[in-house]
C-alpha cells in the first residue's frame, strides 16, 4: 500500500502540477492502471460512475497491456473518463480530472496501438 501511495503522489506531481510532463510510451498504460488501483481505498462505492467506472477503466487498460485494444477501447476509456464528471463526490471527480489530463497529454500514445492504417 505504501508503494502505491507513493506512486499516486508521484503521478499527481507529474500530471497535475506539471501537466506538460509526458510519460514514456512503454510505461504509460501500466502506470495509469497502477494509479487507478491506488485510488481503490478512497472509493466509497456509492455511485456507479466512480465505483464501476474505475474498474472498467482498469479492464480497458488491461486490453492495451494484452495487446487486444481497439479503437473502441480508446473511445470507451474516453467515455468513462468524461462520465466521472457525474460522480457523487470529489474522489470520482478528481480521478476523472486526472484521467482527462492523461488523455489530453497522451492521446497519441493510446491512439498509436489502435489505429488501423
Amino acid at each position, binding site marked *: 500500500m505504501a508503494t502505491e501511495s507513493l506512486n499516486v503522489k508521484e503521478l499527481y506531481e507529474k500530471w497535475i502540477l506539471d501537466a506538460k510532463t509526458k510519460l514514456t510510451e512503454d510505461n504509460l498504460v501500466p502506470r495509469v492502471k497502477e494509479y487507478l488501483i491506488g485510488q481503490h481505498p478512497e472509493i466509497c462505492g456509492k455511485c456507479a*460512475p466512480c465505483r464501476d467506472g474505475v474498474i472498467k477503466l482498469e479492464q*480497458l487498460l488491461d486490453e492495451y497491456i494484452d495487446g487486444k485494444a481497439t479503437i473502441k477501447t480508446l473511445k470507451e476509456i474516453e467515455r468513462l473518463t468524461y462520465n466521472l464528471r*457525474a460522480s457523487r463526490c470529489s474522489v470520482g471527480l478528481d480521478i476523472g480530472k486526472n484521467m482527462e489530463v492523461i488523455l489530453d497529454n497522451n492521446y497519441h500514445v493510446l491512439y498509436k496501438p489502435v489505429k488501423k492504417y
Partner: protein
Amino acid sequence: MASITINGKTLKVKNGTTILKAAEQIGIEIPTLCFLEEINEIGFCRVCVVEVEDEQDLVSACNTEVANGMVIHTNSDKVKESRRATLDLLASKHRFDCWRCPKDGMCEFYDMLKEHDVVFEEFGPGIGRNDETIYGTGISQDLSKCILCKRCVAVCQEVVTANVLKFRDEDPLNPVVSPTPGLAFDESGCIFCGQCVKACPTGTLYETNHVDNVEDLLLEDNYVIAQIAEEARIGLREEFGYDMQDASFDDVFDQALKMIGFEETVSTGVGEDLHVRALGEELYQHMEEKKEEPLLSSWCSGFVRYSELYYGDNLDQLSSLRSPHILQGTLLKKQEHKAKDNVKVVSIMPCTSKKYEITRDELKLDGEQAVDYVLTVREIAKMIKRRGFDMSNIKVQDKKESPYSETRKSSNDLLGNVLAYVANKLNVPFEEPKYKVIHGERLVETEGVIEEATVKFGKAKYNVLRVSGGNAVKAMYKLLKETKKTYLFADVSHCASGCTNGGGQAIRHNVEMHEILKAREEAICAMHASTETTTNEFANNVFEGFFAESRDLLETSYSVKEFTKE
C-alpha cells in the same frame, strides 16, 4: 425566490427547491432511478444528472437545490451521454434473464435502458454483481440483479422501520444490499411486508415464489379453491388494464381461474365478516373485564410479526383471533368440503406477509396448513398472462352461488363494524366515530397515519385508534407507552393506507402514489353499495355453530420471535 433558467425557460421558484422539482413545475421530466420522494433523495444512481452553466461537473437534480441565476440544461449532449454511460455501467453488473424475472413487464430499469437507447459497447449485459440468492418465507432477494440504488434500504428504514436491509460497503468496489450477511430474511427481523419489493426498480427483491407450487397443485388430483381478497380484486383489475371500479372483470377473472384448473373461486367475505363478529365479541369481553390496556387488531400479519419481533412486551394486547383468510380456509377445509380429502386452498392477496403467516405452526390444523399457498396479485396475473388468454373474449359461465362467493357484508370501516357490534350488544345506539389525524397524513406513505376518535357507548366514552404505516405503528406503541389517556382498541395495518397498498399489490410507475391509493380506496368503497353493515347470517351461524365447538380453530397465540440484531 430564485430566478433560474431550465432549457432556455426562465422561471421563479422557492429557495430550497431541488432542480428536479423546479423542472417538474414547467413540465420537464428529468429521469430518476434511485429517487423516492421524501424517502430516498440521495443522488446515488447519477441518472438524474444535469448540466449547470459555470459548474465544471454534472450535478444530480434530485438533491441539488436551485440557486439564483442558475442556468440548467437537462438534455444536453453531455448529459445524455453521461446518463447512457452510467446506465451502461449499471447494466454491466445486472443479470439479464428478463424472461424469467419476477418483475418481467414492470421493470423500471429495463424501461429506462430502453428509453435511453443504451447500447452496450465494450461491456455487454452482465451476469450480475453477486450470484447469491437470499431466501425468506415471504420475500427473497436475487443479488445478481441489484443495481445498488438503495431504495429498498430507505423504505425498510424510513417507511417500514424494520431496518433489515442495509447497504454494506465493507468492500466499496463491490457493495451489497442485504439483510444480515449469512442469514435468511426469516432470521434477520424481516416482517415480509413487501414494501421493498414494490420499491425495487429491478427484480432483485421479489415475493417468494408460490406460482410453481400452485401449478403443481393444479396438475395433481386436488380440489383447489381460490379465495380472493377485495383489495386483490382491485389490483387485478389494474393489472389487466381494466378500470379500478369495473366489477365486470371479476367474473372474467374467476372464469380464467377455472380455465387454468381452479375448481372454485370465492371471496374472503365470510372470513372477514366472521372476524368482525368474533372481534366484536372479544372487544365486548375486553370491556367487561375493564382492561386498561387497549386491544390491538390481529388481521394484519405484518403487524403481528412486527410486534412479535420488536414489541414482545405488548403481545398480550394483540387480539387472539386468526386472520380472516385463515378462518375461511379452515371453514372451507373442515366444514364446507369436509367430505373431500384433497381440498387445497390458495389465497389471492395483496400481501406478501400472508405467505409467511400461512406457515405459522400456531395456525395449522392437525399439522396441515389452513391455506396452502398465497399468490400475490402480480403472481396470479403472471400465471394467467402466461396462458395467453384473451380476457376480453372469455365467456363467463353460470356462477355457482354460495355464501362464500359474496363479498363481505361489513362496511368499509372495519373498526366501525366492530364498534357497532359492541354497541348492539350493549343495547345502546351507535354513532359513527369522527376520526382526527394525530400523526402523519392520510394517503401519504412516509409517515403513515394515526387517526383517533372517541366513541360513545351510552354514557361511557372510549378512545379508539386507526393506524396504518410502519412509522405510525412505531409512533402508536410510543403513544401507548407514554400517554395518560386510555385507549380501548386500535385497528392496525403495517402498510400505509392498509391492504390497498400491500406489498403484493399491482406495481404502477409514473403515477403519483397518493393518487393510486385514493383511487383504490374509492374502488373498494364502490364494491359495497351500502355504507351500512348488514348481518352476514352465514358467518354468524358458523361463529355460533362450528367455531363455538372448535374455539381453538378461531384463536391463536403469539410468542416473542428471536432474530439476530446487528
